[in-house]
């Protein structure tokens, strides 16, 4: 069991993260101080939540390019509501953000399910539509920190047992997803639908409906992230989290979630996001220009994909060896 874990992609990735951290720590010991590590994790929390949402979608052999736009729209809705009626309690706003996100996700899912449009096309369209709606809704205006209620801004920053609520939310989502993916029929259906859609049909799984559910859940997590992002940075505007959809997908890919569907784990997605988080936080410390940061992130993606492709090929060879032995 342990030896198999050590050979797994997750172990490799965890090793890479530790190695990276150690290398940085050699020059900048302050990077590995407890306070800083908490900060890095907290910074990565939203990416972790979004990567887990994207992971469900990718597992079913789909992709959601609209998650960051969904985040911006759900975030803007609650930010404006909070600015207009400060009396609404924060939990109600969080629930609203999740609901708005889920509806937007369901919108993607319906197109994929009922009209059979390729997910990349659907979400490319909704990405633009959602961003457009943020503009329509806000008229292009910002919602600034002073317009938001104190409770609205304070919630993600409140510290319990040494960790901010934002981090606790991420940890809660990780636990929730571990159970959902590993211990429910729905989670199993995600793998079946992505691993072999035709076989899934013969097994009595409704492929379209399963994909719809994946999109809706991913949307709900994007909605939750919308509130978290806007309250944490205390500002809402049209371009918020612009381009972040690619970071989400990159985290999944680095974490070993196969773009072809059916392969991936919660641990992988979390580690992929953390790897991304460490690079983003460490490179400025080591005084590397932001342009190099992009290049390094990109290189990490390609290396990760190359590793996964090699692992797949090796699996192919095992099949041949075994059937040769059998015949």
């Amino acid at each position: 069991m342990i030896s198999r874990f050590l050979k797994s992609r997750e172990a490799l990735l965890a090793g890479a993260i530790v190695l990276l951290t150690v290398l940085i720590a050699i020059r900048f010991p302050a990077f590995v101080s407890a306070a800083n590590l908490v900060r890095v994790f907290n910074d990565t929390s939203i990416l972790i939540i979004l990567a887990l949402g994207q992971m469900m979608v990718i597992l079913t052999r789909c992709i959601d390019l609209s998650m960051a736009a969904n985040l911006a729209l759900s975030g803007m809705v609650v930010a404006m509501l909070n600015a207009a009626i400060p009396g609404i309690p924060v939990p109600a706003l969080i629930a609203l953000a999740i609901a708005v996100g889920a509806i937007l996700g369901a919108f993607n899912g319906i197109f994929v399910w009922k009209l059979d449009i390729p997910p990349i096309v659907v979400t490319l369209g909704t990405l633009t539509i959602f961003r457009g709606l943020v503009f329509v809704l806000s008229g292009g205006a910002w919602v600034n920190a002073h317009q938001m209620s104190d409770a609205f801004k304070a919630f993600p920053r409140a510290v319990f047992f040494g960790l901010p609520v934002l981090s606790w939310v991420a940890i809660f989502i990780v636990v929730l997803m571990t159970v959902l993916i590993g211990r429910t029929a729905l989670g199993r259906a995600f793998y079946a639908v992505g691993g072999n859609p035709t076989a899934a049909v013969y097994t009595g799984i409704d492929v379209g409906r399963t994909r719809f559910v994946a999109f809706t859940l991913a949307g709900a997590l994007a909605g939750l992230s919308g509130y978290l992002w806007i309250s944490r940075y205390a500002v809402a505007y049209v371009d918020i989290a612009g381009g972040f959809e690619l970071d989400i997908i990159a985290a999944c890919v680095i974490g070993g979630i196969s773009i072809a569907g059916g392969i991936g784990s919660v641990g992988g997605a979390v580690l992929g996001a953390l790897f991304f988080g460490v690079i983003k936080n460490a490179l400025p410390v080591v005084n590397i220009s932001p342009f190099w940061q992009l290049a390094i992130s990109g290189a990490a993606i390609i290396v990760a994909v190359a590793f996964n492709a090699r692992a797949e090929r090796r699996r192919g060879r095992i099949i041949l060896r075994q059937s040769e032995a059998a015949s």
Partner: protein
Amino acid sequence: MLNSASPAIAQHASPSATQPLLTLDGVSKSFPGVRALSEVALDLYPGTVTALVGENGAGKSTLVKILTGIYQPDEGTITLAGEPVSFSTAYDAARAGITAIHQETVLFDELSVAENIYLGHAPRGPFGLIDWKRMNKDAAALLRRVGADIDPEARLRGLGIASKHLVAIARALSVEARIVIMDEPTAALSHKEINELYELVERLKAEGKAILFISHKFDEIFRIADRYTVFRDGECVGAGLIADTSHDELVHLMVGRSVDKIFPKTEAEIGEKVFTVSGYSHPTEFADIGFELRRGEILGFYGLVGAGRSELMQALFGITRPSRGAVRIDGEVAVIRSPAEAIRRGIVYVPEERGSQGAIAGLPIFQNVTLPSLGKTTRAGFLKLAEEFRLAREYTSRLELRAAALDRDIATLSGGNQQKVVIAKWLATKPKVIILDEPTKGIDIGSKAAVHEFMSELASEGLSIIMVSSEIPEVLGMADRVIVMREGRIVGEFAREGLDAETLVRAAAGIDKVQS
């Protein structure tokens, strides 16, 4: 040396063709777990139509793929016009003048007819640009040669299947093919179109092409072929002149083998009606299907590829919708709208394509087994892994699955073992009726015997089995009753007693009763 036609006989028989244009000798090809071709021999003579006959799985397609350079033989030689050749790519074979026309033409719908004909070898003008004028003119000339009234500038998409065949043949002529392989070219054609194709074959013959004609239809083999070669189980079991043979002899060669040894069917007690289908029709695939299935019975469905058997089973399983007809389970009318509903009603379907329709790679073996039975292993919405393991172990061990560990990826198993997992998966749902579509296609002899033994065992436990099979020995050996389908309709129903291979082949191919 196998008993294929020796050159001496050929000289004697066909004065126009003294030497074979193409000779295959001792050609073998194996795939993991299957020996597809075993030291086969084949001679093709210029100006001669050679029919290649054999059951499904006899190795005909593998041979075509070797001739067209898609597969490379493991051993054996190919001699073309006296020179030994080897084709490492499809391009090599095409350049050597070998071209194949398939059942479903492999052409490009969005290109024009002329582009399809000249793709890859279009006439070039100055600067290496395509000379469109000449290409269209030459294409028109080729189309006239094959007797096709088709505009070379028309888009291929708009053409019917017969016209597409003609385009494919024109393409064959454009590359100056010397050898034309036709793989069931009449399978999708109407009566009139078939006659036009025969005329074309005659014309190609007159031009001195060597033609390899693959067909299941005996009447057309006897009408247009000059020679024949029969394959069975990847071996060449006979060859000669059509004039010297008869329907009966060819059928014998195709199917002749001892049945009892391989198929351990034990008698099971046949009980009450479980499953009744009546007036079952589909707009395009099948019509007026009616049959009943009893407890403990194995009902065989035999027919040629494309007879509509799998399509019927998919409709019964709720994947496609019938247009008319009723299904009764235990006497109660059942409307099955989805596979999930079929499974709930106790009907399961083990599909033909294990790879694309059965096993889910990436999921461990035990999860593949429990996928349709997750309801049983769920407590309060959560899956119990221990329970899943128990269920998977129970059913895989009944199938004597040799697997190191049930939590390994199913992709690490051999084809035969994957088939066992897929069957175990369905048994775990405790069905009443199990539909097995080509249950032993492409698996090795050992696994085959295990699957057959297991089918007998299931029947004796009271399960009703529908077995779709294109392998005659399997049908004769395993089925209590056999229904033969042709062109989407039931054309015969036979009891096990006294049923022989000839009867089945005649019914499936639509050959009239005993001719002598």
